[in-house]
């Protein structure tokens, strides 16, 4: 900037640092908590590390720890979350890109109707139709299954709209040159459109993965079998225990485990993610 105001800049840095600290604060406390015995939580929360190190994590992940005397399949839940998130992500990206392609590059009867139907789903987040959707899933025998966990969540409109917006910016001459070069619609899609969409796909991958991993209400509703629990759901079950000692260190450890994959994905793909998110809403 033109001016030099070192004091103000230092002030900015301090405020930003404080911001980071306060945002990170809960996670810090959680991490600390995982290293203490549960007895340490009788009166107050410790602020620094205890003696247990990463043993709590180890026990949880190797399924050796118990929780109120029932074994807790943390690894299984992690796996379920991963499968669910990946299936939702790949599924959503695939059908969205196909639909966007159809709507933008073809003229066919019913095109506007299809467009509006997809638009309509923006107004129907799952929270707004939980019971009837639950009934549909039950009737289709999809409870307690991966298909039930994933398919109803694949078809929302945001990805479709994002791809559509991007496709509309492809210069018309590129398409014409491809046609003259003898490329039909399928060739054009794979040879040209898809490679050009790489950034959008990367950004949407991040967004959808997080969306899928963090799903809560829906898995809660349709799974009663522990084998299908996701880790995000599992935390709630642990919190819901009312009698006995609340094993905070295990809860916090599970919380951190549940949090890590999406956070890692976001930080690793930060650039693509930011670009995609900001462009998506513009």
């Amino acid at each position, binding site marked *: 900037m033109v001016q030099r105001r070192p004091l103000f800049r230092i002030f900015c840095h301090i405020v930003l640092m404080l911001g980071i600290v306060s945002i990170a604060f809960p996670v810090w406390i959680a991490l600390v908590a995982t290293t203490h015995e549960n007895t340490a939580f009788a009166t107050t929360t410790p602020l620094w590390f205890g003696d247990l190190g990463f043993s709590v994590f180890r026990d949880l992940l190797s399924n050796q720890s118990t929780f109120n005397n029932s074994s807790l399949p943390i690894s299984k839940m992690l796996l379920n979350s991963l499968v669910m998130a990946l299936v939702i992500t790949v599924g959503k990206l695939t059908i969205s890109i196909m639909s966007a392609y159809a709507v933008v590059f073809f003229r066919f009867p019913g095109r506007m109707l299809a467009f509006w139907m997809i638009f309509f789903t923006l107004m129907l987040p799952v929270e707004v139709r939980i019971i009837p959707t639950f009934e549909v899933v039950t009737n289709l025998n999809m409870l307690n299954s991966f298909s039930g966990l994933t398919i109803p969540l694949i078809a929302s409109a945001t990805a479709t709209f994002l791809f559509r917006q991007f496709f509309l910016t492809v210069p018309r001459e590129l398409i014409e040159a491809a046609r003259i*070069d003898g*490329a039909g619609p399928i060739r054009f899609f794979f040879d*040209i459109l898809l490679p050009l969409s790489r950034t959008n796909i990367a950004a949407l991958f991040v967004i959808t993965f997080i969306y899928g991993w963090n799903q809560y209400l829906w898995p809660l509703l349709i799974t009663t079998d522990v084998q299908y629990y996701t880790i995000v759901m599992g935390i709630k079950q642990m919190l819901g225990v009312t009698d006995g000692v609340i094993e905070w260190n295990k809860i916090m450890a599970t919380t951190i485990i549940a949090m890590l994959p999406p956070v890692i994905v976001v930080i690793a793909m930060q650039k693509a993610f930011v670009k995609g998110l900001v462009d998506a809403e513009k």
Partner: protein
Amino acid sequence: MSTLTLSNITKLYPNGYQAIHELNLDIEEGEMVVLVGPSGCGKSTLLRMIAGLEEITSGELQIDDHLVNHLEPGERDIAMVFQNYALYPHMSIYDNMAYGLRNRKTPKKEIHRLVTQVADMLELSELLERKPKQLSGGQKQRVAMGRAIVREPKVFLFDEPLSNLDAKLRVQMRLQIKKLQRRLGTTSVYVTHDQVEAMTLADKLVVLNKGNIEQVGRPLDIYDRPASTFVASFIGSPAMNLFDANITEKGIEFEHSFFTFNHGGLSLGRVKLGIRPEHFQITAHNSWLKVEVELIESLGADLLLYCKTTTKISQNLVVRVEGHSKINIGDILGLSIKLENLHLFDSNTSKRINIENNVQPIVKVAYA
């Protein structure tokens, strides 16, 4: 080498706008045909219809006497060079040029041979592995041409390919295109709004206006004998001077001068008189016109004099003279021209009136 025939081609848009009106054009083998005209005249639309990128509302398009109206662009065996190059940004230059051949299932060895040969021809051999964004405008345009050449198509189509280049590059590329087309002998259709490109590149020049052909012919023929005031003022820079004049029993009355001649058949009344800037001669005596110099543009080799006639009517005109003529602003000049450099156009239809057959023009000049 192929022929191209357009019969009664019409383009009507759904909103009622008619871009092309029953156009007829024959293009010979190996000809370089240039479509020229102002924005909105339909030249690009016509090109795109030949390419198959726009539908032909009615009429027939034939390549080598085969009707191709309903063929996809990829099936017509044509290649196109776009104004914005239209290179595939994620592919290397080699792949850009190879793409069309790959789609036609040309064997790899053959593709390699063709691409390297064309790259050589266009001096692109060192750039084959690069991506388009690493290239300059001129290089990208050469790649676009290379992509077209490699296909060995029946027809080349050029859509204002030089418009995005800077002036100097434009001249270079213009020459290169001309040389290439001669060498390859492929029938070509070239669209431009730049009449210099049109004049220099065309074997056959087609002047378009509002979806109609105004004139077809060799560039110099069109220059010497424009068929209408539109063509007259579009081709040639600076544009031809057009004056209002009258045909009376005495002859053509213009600014107090008379060109008397046997005008049998010509109706009396107003006409448009056309004289190109370079055809004026500055004479001290026996001049037909007296003008005052208002502004001078020096181009180095030429001087452009922007003048006004000294009569009450005071029409504006441009005169081109040699670059080192000693003329100043405010000078009063006497002008005359050779009769064969006079053009006459009908005031209502704007079409050319031929006066060569009317012999023995007797020039009597009288002015105040």
